[in-house]
């Protein structure tokens, strides 16, 4: 029997097949008689611009509404990323420099540095993370509402950097919390951080950011205590 995409043909075919082979366990019900004059699916779907795709499934005009709504939300989110006003160390000064007159990230809608984590979208971890600070930082991250993103700024934050051997430094912030964008440099120039934040915008628009996986995994406490060596 030839493979077909038409459900009506398939139904007929299956019934014929079963009848011929005698494999139908119960007597098949009365055959579905579909008069040829009845409108086909194609006719019904035509006003909505729907058509079958060669590999299966349908595409059409109204599809725009749910899919493109997501796009709009992503665009809105990408253009309004409020960082948390939080700096750990040297990089914090360059982070502030990113917001000042010369390198103005307010252009991208990232300016109001919110003081409260409840109102922030991006946590820029700027500076060396020590074991004593790891707990408060993770708590800050958990206090931020979804969707949220994390940018690790500077080598100390991405890997421990020059303090990697130290007894009190966490060797990379990704040991205690998820990170979306890593910005290298010690500290990165403001232009570097802006580049990282623009990369983050791309992530947000492609909806590939950390918060998505975070949601998929379900909210979970990140074990930070056992992670450091």
């Amino acid at each position: 029997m030839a493979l077909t995409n038409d459900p009506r043909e398939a139904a007929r075919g299956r019934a014929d097949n079963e009848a011929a082979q005698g494999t139908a366990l119960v007597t098949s019900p009365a055959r579905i008689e579909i008069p040829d004059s009845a409108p086909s699916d194609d006719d019904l779907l035509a006003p909505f611009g729907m058509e079958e795709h060669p590999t299966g499934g349908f595409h059409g005009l109204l599809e725009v509404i749910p899919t493109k709504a997501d796009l709009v939300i992503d665009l809105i989110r990408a253009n309004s990323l409020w960082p948390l006003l939080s700096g750990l160390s040297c990089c914090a000064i360059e982070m502030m420099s990113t917001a000042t007159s010369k390198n103005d990230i307010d252009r991208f809608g990232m300016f109001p540095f919110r003081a409260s984590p409840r109102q922030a979208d991006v946590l820029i971890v700027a500076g060396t993370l020590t074991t004593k600070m790891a707990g408060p930082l993770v708590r800050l991250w958990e206090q931020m509402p979804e969707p949220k993103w994390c940018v690790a700024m500077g080598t100390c934050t991405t890997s421990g950097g020059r303090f990697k051997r130290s007894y009190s430094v966490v060797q990379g912030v990704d040991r205690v919390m998820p990170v979306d964008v890593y910005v290298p440099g010690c500290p990165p120039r403001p232009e570097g951080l802006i580049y990282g934040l623009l990369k983050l915008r791309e992530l947000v628009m492609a909806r590939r950011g950390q918060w998505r996986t975070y949601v998929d995994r379900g909210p979970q406490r990140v074990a930070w205590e056992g992670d450091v060596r």
Partner: protein
Amino acid sequence: MRLLVERFPETARDLWTDEDTVEVQLPRDAVVETLRTLRDDPEFGFFMLADAAAVDYGIGHHFEVVYHLFSDRHPAWLRVRVPVERANPRTPSVTSLWTGAMFHEREMYDMMGIVFEGNRDLRRIYMSPDYRSFPQRKDFLLPDDAADSSAAGVNPLERPETWDLTTFSRELTSSAATYPPPDTQVDVPAEAYPHGQESADKSRPA
């Protein structure tokens, strides 16, 4: 310097000088009285405590508390070295002379485990209160050094278990002023000592 010899013939030892520093060694018992004289006597006038640091001369040797003093009457810094026993690291506090010695002494206690008698706020300043090592002692090895040394595989790191309440009930009983008790503190497990000692114990400077 001559003044020092004249005024403290018994206590001052090991006098030494270079172009801008005068160095003197004092015994532990006389340090407060001598420093008080140095501060208040108009001939000396060392009114400012510039620095207070602790030095570890390695296992088997002693600690040393070093005070740097500044005077507007003398053209040199005065360095006062006070040896402290390693087994019983106690020395009198100078917070009665300079209130600002408080943080210096807290830092020395945190990093070296030297207990300052008479300091009313002697607790850890950098590490978490329940941290149980003294990182700047010479027998506290950084990870890479530990890998190089014969004590390889022993990790002297201790993480702060901030919420681990059981450690407090075990370690702390009544008086917490000397917490953690200095004589029970061992950074590297005891079996690592016979081999680890050589790499940690560097030759003492002259």
